[in-house]
C-alpha cells in the first residue's frame, strides 16, 4: 500500500504535460529559494534593529553616567533630559526608590532584585514593549541607571517587512512562474508543430517534412535529423514499392501467358499440333517463373545472411581457367572468343567455389549475350584484394544503368522486355558480398563493358599450405559442375558441355543475366 501510493503518484506525474511539469518544478524550487531568502532577510533585519537599539541605549547610559558622576544622592540629582525615543530612571539599590527620572517614569521600572543584580555589571532586560539596559553609576552611594527604549518602532518595521515578504513574495513567484510557463510553452511550440505535422506524414514519396524552427537550437537539430530520417525511409519505401511492382510484373506476365495458353488449349477443336505448341509454350513459362522464383529466393536468402558457404582456399588462376573452359564452346558457336589474360597469378582466395563460378558464369554469359568481340577474363591484384574482371568489346552500359546495374530487376534496356528479369547482376553482387567482397561495373575507355568481382586475397603463406591441403575439395568444379546441393546455386546453370543449345546462351542462362 505504502509502495503503491508513490507509484500511482509517479504515474500521474508522468501524465502531466511537460510544460506544466517544467513550470511546477521551477515553481517548487522558487518557493524554497524565496522562502529561505525571506526568512534570512527577516532574521538579519531583526538583528540589525536590536543592535541599533542597544547602541543607542549604551550611548544614553554613558551620557547620563557622565551627568551624574560623583554626585551625592542625598543632595538630589539633576532631572534627566528626554531624548528621542528613550527614557531613563535612576534607582537606589536598596529599597528600589526612584531618585531621578525622565518625565513620566516616576514608578520603578524593574524589581529591587533586578536592580541589585545590575550593581556589579550592566545587564539587558527585555520587557513586553521595551528593552531596558541596567548599569551601575558612580553616584554616592552607587545607584543603578536604567535606560530603556520602546520596541514599538522595531515591531512596526518588522511588521512592514513581513507584510512585504508574505504578499509581494507570492505575487512575484506567481509572475515568475507565469513567465516560466510562457517561455517553456514557446520553446516547446516547435515540438508541438512537429508532432502535429508528423501525424499527417504518410510515407508517400515527395511527402511532407517536419517544420523546422528559425532558431539554430537543439529542436532545430532534432527536426533536421528527423527530416533526414524521413527522406531515407521514403527512399527505402520507394525502392521497396518499385521492387514489388517489378516483381509482380515479372511474375504475373508469365502467369497471364500461362493461363491464356491453357485456356486456349482446353477449347474444343484444337488439333494435336496446336495442343503440343500450347503445352510447350506453357512449359516455357513455367521454366521462366521457376527461374525468377529461384533467383528471388536466392537473393532473399543472401540478403538475410543465410547463404551456406563452404569456403576453401582456391587459386584464382584455376577459378578463371574453369570458367573459360565452361564457356569456350558456347562462345565458339557464337563466333566469339574467350581470352584469358594475366596468366601466372599466384593469388588465392577463400571462397565457395561453386558460388563464385556461378557468379563469374553470369558475367561471362552477359558479355556473350550483350557484348561484342572477344570476351576478356582477367585478374587484377590490388593490395589485399583480387579483382576478377570480365570485359567485352560491345557498346558498353548505358550511363543511367551503371548507377543501378546491381539493383534487383534493373534493366539496361527497358525495350528488351521479356528476355530476362534483371536479376543476374544482383546475384553476382549478393555472392560477392557474401564472401566479404564487392562487385563493380564500368565502361572501358576503349568501349565495351567491364564488370568485376572483388574478393579479399588470402595471405601467401596460408594460401600455399591450405591450397595443397584443400586440393581435393576443389576437384568437383574443375572436373564437373557441382553436384546437387541444398540450396543449389540458382543461376546460371552452366551450359552442358555436350551439344550446347544452338542459340547460346541457353534461355535459362539468358533470363538471369544483365539486360
Amino acid at each position, binding site marked *: 500500500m505504502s509502495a503503491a501510493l508513490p507509484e500511482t503518484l509517479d504515474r500521474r506525474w508522468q501524465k502531466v504535460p511537460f510544460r506544466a511539469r517544467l513550470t511546477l518544478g521551477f515553481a517548487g524550487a522558487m518557493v524554497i529559494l524565496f522562502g529561505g531568502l525571506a526568512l534570512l532577510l527577516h532574521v538579519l533585519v531583526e538583528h540589525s534593529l536590536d543592535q541599533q537599539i542597544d547602541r543607542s541605549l549604551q550611548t544614553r547610559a554613558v551620557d547620563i553616567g557622565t551627568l551624574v558622576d560623583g554626585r551625592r544622592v542625598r543632595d538630589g540629582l539633576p532631572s534627566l533630559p528626554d531624548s528621542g525615543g528613550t527614557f531613563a530612571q535612576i534607582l537606589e539599590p536598596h529599597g528600589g526608590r526612584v531618585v531621578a527620572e525622565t518625565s513620566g517614569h516616576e514608578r520603578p521600572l524593574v524589581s529591587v532584585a533586578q536592580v541589585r543584580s545590575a550593581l556589579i555589571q550592566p545587564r539587558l532586560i527585555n520587557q513586553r514593549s521595551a528593552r531596558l539596559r541596567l548599569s551601575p553609576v558612580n553616584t554616592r552611594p552607587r545607584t543603578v541607571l536604567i535606560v530603556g527604549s520602546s520596541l514599538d518602532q522595531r515591531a512596526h518595521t518588522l511588521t512592514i517587512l513581513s507584510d512585504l515578504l508574505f504578499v509581494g513574495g507570492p505575487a512575484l513567484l506567481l509572475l515568475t512562474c507565469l513567465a516560466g510557463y510562457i517561455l517553456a510553452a514557446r520553446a516547446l511550440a516547435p515540438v508541438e508543430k512537429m508532432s502535429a505535422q508528423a501525424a499527417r506524414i504518410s510515407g508517400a514519396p515527395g511527402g511532407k517534412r517536419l517544420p523546422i524552427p528559425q532558431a539554430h537550437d537543439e529542436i532545430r537539430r532534432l527536426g533536421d535529423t528527423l527530416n533526414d530520417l524521413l527522406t531515407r525511409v521514403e527512399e527505402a519505401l520507394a525502392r521497396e514499392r518499385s521492387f*514489388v*511492382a517489378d516483381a*509482380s*510484373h*515479372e*511474375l*504475373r*506476365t508469365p*502467369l*497471364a*501467358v*500461362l*493461363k*491464356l*495458353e491453357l*485456356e*486456349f488449349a482446353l477449347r474444343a477443336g484444337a488439333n494435336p499440333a496446336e495442343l503440343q505448341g500450347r503445352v510447350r*509454350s506453357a512449359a516455357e*513459362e513455367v521454366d521462366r517463373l521457376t527461374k525468377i522464383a529461384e533467383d528471388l529466393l536466392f537473393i532473399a536468402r543472401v540478403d538475410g545472411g543465410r547463404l551456406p558457404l563452404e569456403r576453401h582456399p582456391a587459386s584464382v588462376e584455376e577459378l578463371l581457367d574453369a570458367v573459360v573452359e565452361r564457356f569456350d564452346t558456347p562462345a565458339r558457336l557464337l563466333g566469339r572468343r574467350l581470352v584469358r589474360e594475366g596468366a601466372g597469378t599466384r593469388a588465392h582466395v577463400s571462397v565457395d567455389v561453386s558460388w563464385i563460378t556461378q557468379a563469374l558464369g553470369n558475367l561471362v554469359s552477359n558479355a556473350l549475350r550483350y557484348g561484342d568481340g572477344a570476351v576478356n577474363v582477367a585478374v587484377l591484384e590490388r593490395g589485399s584484394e583480387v579483382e576478377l574482371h570480365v570485359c567485352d568489346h560491345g557498346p558498353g552500359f548505358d550511363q543511367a544503368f551503371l548507377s543501378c546495374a546491381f539493383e534487383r530487376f534493373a534493366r539496361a*534496356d*527497358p*525495350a*528488351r*522486355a*521479356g528476355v530476362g528479369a534483371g536479376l543476374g547482376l544482383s546475384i553476382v553482387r549478393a555472392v560477392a558480398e557474401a564472401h566479404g567482397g564487392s562487385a563493380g561495373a564500368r565502361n572501358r575507355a576503349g568501349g565495351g563493358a567491364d564488370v568485376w568481382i572483388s574478393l579479399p586475397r588470402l595471405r601467401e603463406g596460408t594460401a600455399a599450405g591450405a591450397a595443397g591441403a584443400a586440393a581435393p575439395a576443389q576437384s568437383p568444379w574443375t572436373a564437373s559442375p557441382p553436384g546437387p546441393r541444398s540450396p543449389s546455386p540458382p543461376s546460371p546453370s552452366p551450359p552442358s558441355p555436350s551439344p550446347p543449345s544452338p542459340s547460346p546462351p541457353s534461355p535459362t542462362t539468358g533470363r538471369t543475366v544483365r539486360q
Partner: protein
Amino acid sequence: MRVLVVEDEPKLASLLSEGLRRQGMAVDIAGDGPGALVAATATRYDCIVLDVMLPGIDGFEVCRRLRAQSVWSPMLMLTARDEIEDRVRGLDSGADDYLVKPFSSEELLARIRALVRRGGPPRPTRLVVGQVTLDPASREVWRNGEPLGLTAREFALLETFMRRPGEVLSRYELLEHVWDGAYENRSNVIEVYVGYLRDKLGREAIETVRGAGYRLTP
C-alpha cells in the same frame, strides 16, 4: 470492330490478338508506348487494351497523352499491380476499366464488349469551360491558370454546372445534384452558393435566367 493491343511481351500480345480475332475482331498490336500513340491517333479504335508496364513511356502516360489528344476510344488497362493506388491512378489518368494479370480470356472479352457498348463519347478527366478548368480527381479548380480555393459545396455546384455548360439548370435540379434530401426546397441556399461562385469566378460567369434557373456562361 477494331481493337488495339499495346503489350510489350510478344507471347502475351499474340495470345491476346488470337483470342480477340476468334471473336471476329480486327486486332492491331503495338509493342511500346510511342507505337501505341501513333497507332491510336491514326485510327479510331473501338477499344484499346493497354499494358501498364511498357518500355519507354508507361501505360498511365500513354493513356494521359491519348486523352489529351482527344482520343476517346474505350481503354482497358492490363496490369500486374493490383494495389488500390495503382488502380486509382490508372482510372484517373483516363482509363475506363482495369484488369489484373493473370486474367481469364472470358473476362477480358466480356469487359471489352461492355466497354464497346458504352462507346467513346468525349469524357475528359478534367472539365474545361471557357477560362475555368476543374479536375474532379484532385478536386482543384483553375481560372486562367490561377488555382481557386473552393469549399466542397461550391466545388460540387460548379462541377454540376460544368458538366452541362450552356444549359439552364433549374433550382430544383441543382438542389437535387448538390444537396441531399434533407434540404428544404424553399431555402435560398442556391442563391447564396451561386453568389459565392460568382464572387470567385466573376459576376458574369453564372447567368440568372429569370423564371428558369441558372446557366454557366461558356
